[in-house]
């Protein structure tokens, strides 16, 4: 049944968070060095090409969210932590990067490995 105008307006205020209450242990914590996995699925992912295989540092843990890679394929929500990963500009862009600058990208647990 179609939502009516007042239901639509109510929905704009409640929104549809992807955050999940499921308690899931984080694999990483702020300060950990991490390397992005070289994943190249033909299906949906939110791991951008420009950070694949690169090394960064966990800046912050946002908490537990739906995992889009499985969710888009109707394979479940697979709740897991999403972190801000901080990359040096030169790590991503080599000599064309800027010494002072940083990229901060939101990354799911399943996109990374520890980089001791």
């Amino acid at each position, binding site marked *: 049944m*179609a*939502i009516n105008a007042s*239901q*639509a307006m109510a*929905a*704009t205020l409640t929104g*549809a968070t*992807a955050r999940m209450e499921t308690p899931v242990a984080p694999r990483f914590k702020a300060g950990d060095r991490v390397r992005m996995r070289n994943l*190249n*699925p*033909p*299906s*949906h*992912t939110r791991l*951008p*090409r*420009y950070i694949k295989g690169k090394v960064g540092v966990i800046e912050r843990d946002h908490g537990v969210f*739906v995992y*889009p890679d499985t*969710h*888009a394929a109707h394979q479940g929500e697979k709740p897991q932590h999403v972190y801000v990963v901080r990359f040096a500009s030169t790590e*991503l*862009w080599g000599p064309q990067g800027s010494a002072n600058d940083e990229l901060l990208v939101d990354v799911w647990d399943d996109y990374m490995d520890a980089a001791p």
Partner: protein
Amino acid sequence: MNGVHDLGGMHGLGPIVIEKDEPVFHHEWERRVFGMFLPVFATGAFNIDEFRHAIERMGPEYLQTSYYEHWLAAFETLLEEKGMISAEEFSARRARIAEEAR
């Protein structure tokens, strides 16, 4: 997917074009596409991740079309894939509308 939408770091995509005091919508059809977003999601036909993936599946056309054209393409693709509107229904309705507008 390693799609054309994955733009971070690419070169050669042209200058940043800024329209001063840009309106929220440039065309009436953009308004309708935007306004359909939430009601269509509310039907439960697909989730936001499927929606984004449908846009990513546009291929090179993605770079030649505007933002709300991306949404339109995703709605059409997904509603057809989910069996909610058939290709025949789309083409028949478009033909009728085009005829009536003549």
